[in-house]
């Protein structure tokens, strides 16, 4: 199977590790952002920002570290399946809770 991974293995020195190193730098920067934003008074926005940044970090880990970028469609489907089931769990749970306790 050829692809970006194959081409990268021919690169010299640090260039072959560029995706991983850049991903790590982005992750550390996002960690700083999460931490920093937590101290700003944004009300409900704090949670939204935190989850959005966490999602971005998750995508970086999944696509670059876990190599979904270079993976066969079968693996990407397997990964997506886990999140589809998680979405079902969360959406149905929250729909129930919001209707029951929303009136409080």
């Amino acid at each position, binding site marked *: *199977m*050829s692809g970006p991974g*194959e081409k*990268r*293995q021919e690169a010299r020195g640090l260039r*072959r*590790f560029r995706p*991983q*190193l850049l*991903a*790590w730098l982005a*992750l*550390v920067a996002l*960690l700083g952002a*999460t*931490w920093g934003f*937590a*101290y*700003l*008074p*944004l009300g409900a926005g*704090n949670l939204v920002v*935190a*989850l959005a*940044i*966490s999602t971005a*970090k*998750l995508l970086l*880990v*999944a696509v*670059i*570290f*876990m*190599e979904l970028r270079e*993976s*066969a469609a*079968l*693996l990407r489907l*397997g*990964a997506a*399946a*886990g*999140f589809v*089931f*998680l979405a079902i*769990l*969360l959406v149905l*749970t*929250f729909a129930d*809770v*919001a209707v029951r*306790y929303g009136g409080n």
Partner: protein
Amino acid sequence: MSSATRDAAAPPPEAAQPDEPYAAFDRQRLAQSFAMWIFLATEVLFFGGLFAGYAVYRFAYTAEFTEAARQTEVHLGTLNTLILLTSSLFVALAVETVGQPSQRFCRWMLGIAIALGVAFLAVKGYEYRVDIVKGLVPGAGSELAPGPGRIFIAFYWVMTGLHALHVTIGLGALAVMLRRLIRRPEAMRRKADLQVAGLYWHFVDAVWIFLYPLLYLVGRAQ
């Protein structure tokens, strides 16, 4: 090396054939990775249940949760996030270089990743001790007012404890991979053992990426 060259090079006895029932190494690698992703999907639901429970109680008792959550050790939590992100980098570097003629770099990357994982557990253990001394516990000896605040702390202990258990299992898997790299380098070159252990480790990192803001960064703006 491309996967074709990797398979065509003269194989020593230990790596001459893929394992049963695979006809070719690339089939075995695909099956190994697929199996791990399926397992990780179940793990997503495993932790997902705890996250859903946390969300429901936080939605119901927002003020008490916020009050209790402010007492977590944000500096230790942030340090641990940095440690885990960096260990994932080193695992990724190891996976990237397992196919090299000399796997020395790969073994070093894996060794550093394991050391960082152990550091994570050390920081967590120290943090648990600080939490206990502060009375940040759900039950007997709690310094928190009785009520929903203690539910938050219960979630904190269960979620981080379960995560720490996964970190320990991941470290065991990585250590086994390091041993295999030393004893059976050719088999490790052809199969996806290291990649699969790496997937598990990155998953453990990903869970922590979500645990961190939900347990450590609540109510910090007040």
